[in-house]
């Protein structure tokens, strides 16, 4: 079983729709929760991150974390064609290498392909 599960879609919605993207996870040690947006042939771009249960809002985007259910969501309001991209959830914890040095280890979901059509 993967540590992070994300529905790959694809998801197609009309412009102006509310989009809900979701991920579930199994590792209770995850401390930070992030959403990245990746346009075709580009690197992932950090959209939002949070570390506590609850909602965090940034413009048209709202990130929601429910640690008790091990479930995170990203909501996009008033979706635009420019929102068409692959959305990746990611979660991090403190890991240690063989020498005992700690580093932030990110685990990514598979990504959801979103298309917003005019």
């Amino acid at each position, binding site marked *: 079983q993967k540590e992070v599960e994300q529905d790959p879609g694809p998801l197609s919605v009309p412009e102006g729709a509310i989009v809900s993207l979701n991920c579930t996870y199994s590792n209770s040690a995850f401390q930070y929760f992030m959403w*990245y947006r990746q346009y075709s*042939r580009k*690197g*992932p771009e950090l959209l939002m991150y949070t570390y506590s249960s609850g909602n965090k809002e940034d413009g048209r985007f709202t990130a929601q974390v429910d640690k008790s259910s091990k479930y995170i969501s990203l909501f996009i309001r008033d979706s635009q064609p420019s929102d068409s991209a692959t959305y990746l959830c990611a979660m991090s914890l403190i890991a240690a290498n063989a020498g005992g040095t700690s580093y*932030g*280890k*990110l685990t990514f*979901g598979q990504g959801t392909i979103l298309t917003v059509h005019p």
Partner: protein
Amino acid sequence: EADIYQTPRYLVIGTGKKITLECSQTMGHDKMYWYQQDPGMELHLIHYSYGVNSTEKGDLSSESTVSRIRTEHFPLTLESARPSHTSQYLCASSAHQETQYFGPGTRLLVL
């Protein structure tokens, strides 16, 4: 916007060639990472570094090697490219655990 650069953006090369993928960042971040991403698949960590002269292998086994002689530079080398190395390679850097900034990626095709 993050200041992290990767060159080349696209590379087509024959089997057996040695290649080096460049990654540079101007943010002074201590930690840098290399990920491999195949189409429709999640990112897999292949190398990371938490400072100059430190490198470690990631979760996904890779025949590539890395070096970190300067804070801003984290090149990845394949001594002998094979078709199985065809993929997208993404470099990232971070100052904190929760935020990694990615470069634009290098798409590698080995014939």
